């Protein structure tokens, strides 16, 4: 048990000396504390006594600046502006009646009272029991009003101006759905954020904070927010902050991160000028080489600036938006559910080429005479005059329904849907926005699941509708990405809006790399046929989309005119990509109940392409 040096502890002199050293060490530390106490209590005693008597120190939260949003060229599309709030500090209010009278005496140039008597009276009343927070009596006040209150500060004890930062979108409604908006945080969200803060150490929200809603503002809220700072300030008898207390711990606010998006604001604004607000629909343009979204427009538009206005104006604007039957709050690009119509024929064509059952240069067994008899009824072709016998490229160019009825029956839905999934249909693309819809692909199993309860049964007749894109559901974003996949021919990228994240100093903190969603299994020969067919749609005299032509650029596309339950007119669709040799842009346009895709959607896409390739004047 005893080791060589075990005797040290048995030596009473050693023990006594070690114990003395320990006591000396602790005594030294205690002496340092005594010095500190001497400093606090004797040297600074009177100062602390004064602070204790007035209790005039306040903890102040210093809000972090919210990160900005830029377009791909560095143009600011969301920034912050100062906003003045006139507020009452309940603990500093002395004579409430007098304050009320003085405030109501302020009049603007038209002779109207600046302050709303009801709001002021009610706030003064509330100030009797809501003691510990400022009560705002004039939200987002003009600078003149703020300076007026500052001038009369000594007459109005307890009335203060608070400076806040509010979000503003310099382009107004442009890209409004994509950007989202800011709104006051709700009680439940404050509670949730407190629970989360206990787990991951994030800063909880406070009453009066603003939080990102919808779009990028919501998606990247945690990055935009930054971290609030704190400091202690001494306040005077009017509740006015005099100075920061320097020897108290303080925490500098950490500005939020800024985001450089993939959007091209010039193109975005042009696209929105093409979609008038009376039209309902959406336009998405993206880069087939990496999935970067260039344009994302939804009509009617929504202006996120209204949420930064004061309560009255905000409430009025909000009511108008919320009650509008055309649902301007919806981002139709990602949550609009549309039947793809004839644009789906690209999928069926590829399935046909890959099946080995249909050869591109052959025609179907029956010619198109304006309709196709199957079972006990006749399915019509869109052109009642009929198309006769067509090969695949011809049928695609002229969008012959009868050809695709027969192709669908030969191929079966399983084979078609496998290709559709490869092109990203039937499932969310995973874009960095919430509220994205997944769309729908239909086969016998999903049909039974969806409609079985209503007593509807799957029949082969349904294949006829499905193979011309009636029955599937897709979002404009999915259609644009599908067009990108057709043009690219090798891979499908995940569409995304964030290009890079930057710190407030401007250093790049995160860069988004193109992410491959699916590998497209298509041989170069098959791809060449598809590109040829898409080009014929635009350039052939028989093609349905002559109005999407761009001088000097090979454009390929496919029109669609989808029957729908919402109205008599079809939804007009057009998907396209260009230049076909080396595609740099893919576009999808969907216009609700506008009519034929070739007549309404294709011209809009064409104008956008001409602008993109520099043929349309700027501005």
């Amino acid at each position: 048990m005893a080791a060589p040096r075990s005797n040290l502890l048995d030596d009473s002199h050693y023990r006594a000396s070690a114990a003395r050293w320990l006591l000396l060490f602790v005594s030294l530390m205690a002496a340092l504390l005594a010095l500190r106490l001497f400093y606090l209590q004797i040297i600074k005693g009177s100062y602390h006594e004064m602070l204790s008597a007035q209790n005039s120190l306040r903890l102040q939260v210093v809000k972090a600046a919210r990160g900005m949003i830029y377009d791909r060229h560095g143009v600011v599309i969301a920034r912050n502006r100062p906003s003045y709030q006139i507020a009452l500090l309940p603990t500093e209010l002395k004579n409430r009646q007098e304050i009320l009278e003085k405030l109501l005496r302020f009049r603007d140039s038209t002779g109207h009272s600046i302050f709303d008597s009801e709001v002021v009276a009610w706030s003064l009343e509330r100030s009797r029991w809501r003691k510990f927070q400022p009560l705002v009596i004039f939200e987002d006040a003009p600078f003149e009003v703020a300076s007026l209150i500052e001038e009369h500060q000594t007459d109005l004890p307890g009335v203060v101006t608070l400076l806040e930062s509010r979000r503003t979108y310099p382009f107004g409604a442009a890209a409004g759905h994509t950007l989202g908006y800011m709104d006051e945080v709700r009680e439940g969200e404050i509670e949730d954020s407190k629970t989360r803060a206990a787990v991951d150490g994030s800063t909880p929200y406070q009453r009066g904070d603003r939080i990102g809603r919808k779009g990028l503002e919501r998606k990247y809220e945690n990055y935009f927010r930054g971290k609030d700072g704190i400091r202690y300030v001494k306040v005077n008898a009017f509740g006015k902050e005099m100075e920061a207390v320097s020897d108290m711990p303080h925490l500098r606010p950490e500005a939020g991160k800024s985001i450089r998006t993939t959007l091209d604001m010039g193109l975005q604004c042009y696209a929105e000028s093409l979609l008038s607000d009376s039209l309902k629909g959406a336009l998405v343009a993206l880069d087939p080489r990496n999935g970067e979204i260039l344009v994302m427009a939804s009509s009617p538009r929504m202006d996120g600036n209204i949420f930064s206005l004061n309560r009255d104006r905000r409430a009025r604007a909000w009511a108008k938006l919320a009650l509008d039957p055309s649902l301007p709050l919806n981002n139709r690009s990602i949550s609009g559910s549309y039947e793809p119509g004839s644009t789906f024929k690209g999928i069926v064509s590829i399935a046909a080429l890959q099946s080995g059952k249909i050869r591109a240069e052959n025609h179907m067994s029956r010619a198109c005479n304006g309709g196709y008899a199957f079972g006990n009824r006749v399915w019509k072709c869109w052109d009642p005059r009929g198309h006769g016998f067509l090969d695949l490229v011809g049928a695609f160019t002229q969008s012959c329904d009868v050809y695709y009825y027969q192709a669908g029956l030969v191929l079966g839905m399983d084979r078609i849907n496998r290709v559709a999934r490869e092109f990203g249909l039937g499932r969310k693309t995973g874009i960095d926005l919430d509220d994205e819809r997944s769309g729908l692909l239909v086969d016998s199993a999903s049909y039974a699941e969806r409609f079985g309860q209503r007593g509807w049964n799957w029949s082969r007749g349904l294949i006829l509708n499905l193979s011309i894109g009636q029955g599937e559901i897709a979002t404009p974003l999915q259609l644009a990405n599908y067009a990108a996949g057709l043009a690219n021919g090798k891979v499908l990228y995940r569409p995304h809006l964030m290009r890079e994240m930057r710190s407030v100093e401007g250093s790049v903190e995160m860069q988004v790399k193109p992410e491959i969603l699916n590998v497209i299994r298509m041989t170069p020969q098959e791809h060449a046929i598809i590109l040829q067919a898409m080009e014929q749609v635009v350039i052939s005299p028989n093609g349905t989309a002559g109005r999407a032509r761009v001088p000097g650029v090979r454009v390929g596309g496919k029109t669609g005119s989808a029957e729908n339950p919402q109205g008599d007119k079809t939804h007009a669709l057009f998907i396209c990509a260009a230049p076909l040799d080396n595609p740099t842009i893919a576009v999808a346009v969907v216009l609700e109940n506008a009519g034929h895709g070739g007549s309404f959607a294709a011209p809009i896409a064409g104008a956008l392409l001409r602008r993109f390739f520099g043929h349309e004047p700027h501005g």
Partner: protein
Amino acid sequence: MSRTDSSERRRLDWPLLGIVAVLLGIGVMVVYSATKGEAGHHWQKQILFAGMSLVAMTAMYLIPPRYFYAGAYPLYIASLFPLLYIILFKANSVERWIALPGGFNLQPSEFAKVALLLAMARLLSFQPVSLSQPKTLLAPAILFIVPFALVLKEPNLSTALSFVAMTGMMLFFSGLSVRDLFFLVSPVLSVVLTFNHTAWAVMFLVLIAVMWWTRTHLRTMVSLILVNIAAGYAAIFVWNKVLYAHQRDRILTFMDPLRDPQGAGYQVLQSKVALGSGKLLGKGYLHGTQTNLSFLPEEHTDFIFSVLGEQFGFLGCITVLALYLFLLHRILRIAADTRSRFTALMAVGLTGILSFHVLVNISMTVGVMPVTGLPLPFMSYGGSFLISCFIMLGIVLNFRSHGEYL
């Protein structure tokens, strides 16, 4: 120090118990003044806790010492299970205790504190340690690191650090020099200081200077420097590549609670104002304005010293500090006087825990250390820590009286 004769040793250490009684009394008084007019019967409960503590101490005093010696290791093993239970089943809860029948809560970290004290005292009592023979440090290191890591994971940083203070003092007492302790702690310092290159460089300079000065063995020098460099870079790597942002944030808030804008910073401010406004003689008992208006949160637990300082001033604070030093002096005297290595080590370990709590708690109230929620021994409101202090005191007094030849 003169050797006291055995008849004195057999009696209880009345001066020591006297100081503890005075501290306890002041504590109840201040708790009364801090919570006057609040619901919760705090001072009555505090008297109840004190009574329970006395019962626990008496029980510890009466158990034959050999049971503690024999039970040290089994108790140590047993103390690890409640810690594991907390980590495994209460990972997402702020609770760090286990509810026992009868409305009592078991604080596994307090239990582990007593068990580690016993086990470490037993181990070091027959195994001398030396840095030149690294093998001798292996067993104490393992004994220490397991409960330390578990308590750290709980997470209860302050209690884990009190283990460091306790073990450090015991190692010093059993022969490690201050230099050796510095060498042992240096990799931990590297982990922290690596984030500030100047500080890290200064630490290396000091380390090398000490090595040079004390003619440290070349092999020890080289390996220590390598270990320090490795620890520093490993820390940076883990920080940047392994931890997620929110985990980093959590650690930062843990080390520096002032990052929490609302909570800790406010407390420190109010504590400083309360203490400082007491000036030389204080505002008088029950006349504290700061505390009576409830501007000071946690006033009866972690910030009891500020309440004392406001009402009794600088003189009151110094008196209490002196009482603590006298108490530590009495406990260390047991270590000096006893013939039993085990008893001496127990006394030193207890000194480590008590002095750590006193120094860190007061440092926190005067605003020189982060707010970590460490109570002031014998004075802060609360049962668990009080009882565990009395249990350790009871064991040490027991050994002083009856454990001479163990």
